[in-house]
C-alpha cells in the first residue's frame, strides 16, 4: 500500500491491517501517536530518556498484543492505558522520581534552557527553575490515581470520558480525582498564586 494512502486511513483501518500482519500500518500508528505518548511519559517521569523508553515500550506491547485489541475502545485510549500502567509500574518499582532527583532534573533542564536561550536573565532562569522544582515535588506527592487523572486532563487535555476509559473507571471518579488533585496542588503551591 502506498504511503500517502496509508496516511489517509483512520486508526480503525490501520489497526485492522496491522492485525492482519501489515507492519507498515502499525508504523503509521506509531508516527501518529509517538509525540503524544512521549509527552504523557514525560509528564510522569520528567526525564527525556525515561520518557522515550517508556513510550517505546508501550508501542512495543501494543504491537505484540494487538490481537487482544477488540476495537471496543479507540486505539489511542488503549495505547494510553498501556502507557499509563507502564509509567505507574515504573514508579512503583522504586525507580520513581524522588524529590531530590526531581530537583536535579529540573535544575539540569533549567541550565539547558539557559544555554539555549542566553538572552533570558540568570535570575529569571533561577526563579523559573525553583518554581519548576516546587511544582514537580507537589505533583510527585499526589496519589497515583489523582496524579494520573490530573496529568491527563491538565497537561494532555483529554476529556473526562477519555480519561475514564484510559483509567478504566467511572467518569464521576475521574472528576473526584481531578478535584482532589487541584485542591492539594493549591494548598502546596499557594505561594505561586
Amino acid at each position: 500500500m502506498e504511503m500517502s494512502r496509508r496516511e489517509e486511513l483512520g486508526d480503525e483501518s490501520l489497526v485492522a491491517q496491522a492485525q492482519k500482519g501489515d507492519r507498515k500500518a502499525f508504523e503509521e500508528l506509531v508516527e501518529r501517536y509517538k509525540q503524544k505518548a512521549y509527552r504523557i511519559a514525560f509528564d510522569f517521569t520528567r526525564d527525556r530518556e525515561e520518557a522515550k523508553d517508556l513510550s517505546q515500550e508501550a508501542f512495543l506491547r501494543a504491537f505484540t498484543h494487538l490481537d487482544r485489541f477488540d476495537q471496543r475502545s479507540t486505539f489511542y485510549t488503549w495505547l494510553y492505558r498501556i502507557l499509563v500502567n507502564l509509567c505507574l509500574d515504573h514508579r512503583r518499582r522504586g525507580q520513581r522520581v524522588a524529590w531530590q532527583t526531581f530537583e536535579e532534573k529540573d535544575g539540569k533542564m533549567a541550565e539547558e534552557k539557559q544555554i539555549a536561550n542566553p538572552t533570558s536573565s540568570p535570575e529569571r532562569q533561577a526563579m523559573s527553575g525553583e518554581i519548576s522544582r516546587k511544582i514537580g515535588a507537589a505533583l510527585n506527592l499526589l496519589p497515583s490515581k489523582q496524579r494520573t487523572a490530573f496529568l491527563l486532563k491538565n497537561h494532555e487535555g483529554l476529556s473526562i470520558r477519555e480519561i475514564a476509559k484510559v483509567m478504566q473507571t467511572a467518569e464521576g471518579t475521574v472528576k473526584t480525582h481531578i478535584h482532589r488533585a487541584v485542591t492539594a496542588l493549591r494548598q502546596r503551591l499557594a505561594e505561586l498564586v
Partner: protein
Amino acid sequence: MTKTATLRTACKDYEQDLVLYYYAECSDQERARIDAHIRDCPSCAGFLDELRILLPLTVKTDEPPRPFWESYSHELREKLTLAREIRPWWHGIFSFLRPFPVPALAAALVLLLAVTLTLTKGMWRTRDVPLKEEALLEVLPMAENLEFYKSMDFLDSLDLLEDMGSFVESGTA
C-alpha cells in the same frame, strides 16, 4: 505557609463544579448556573482566577529536537522487528482463539462433560457411606429383629408356665 491563608475559598457546593468549569467539562446549563453564581460571589470568582493562574504553571513541556524523533522511530522499528522474531510458536494458536476465549472454553468443558457422562453411564455409583458401615447398617435391623424374636420366645415360655401352673392348681383341687 502563611500564604495558604490567603487562598480564596470557594463555596463548598461550587468548588468541584468550578474546577470542571475551568476545564470546560460542564454542560451549557451548568455553565450558565456557575456564570450566574460567580457574578454575585467574589470568593468563587477569586477561586476561579487562582486556578487560571496556577494550573497552567504546572504544565512542563519538553520539545526534543528533530534528530531525537528520527532516532526514536528508527529504534522503535528495530525493536518491533526483534519482537516479531522472538514471538513464540503457540502465540498463533492463542491469538486465533483469543476473540472468543471464555465462550470457547465453556463450550469445550460442557462438551467434555457430556461425552464423559455418556461414555461412562452406569459405571458411576453414588456411595454416601463406606462399605463396612453399609454392611453394618444391613445387619443391625436383623439383629434388632432377633432380639424381638427372642423376647417373643420368652413370652411364649411364660404362657407355658402359666398354663402349667393352672394345670397343677386344678389337679390339687
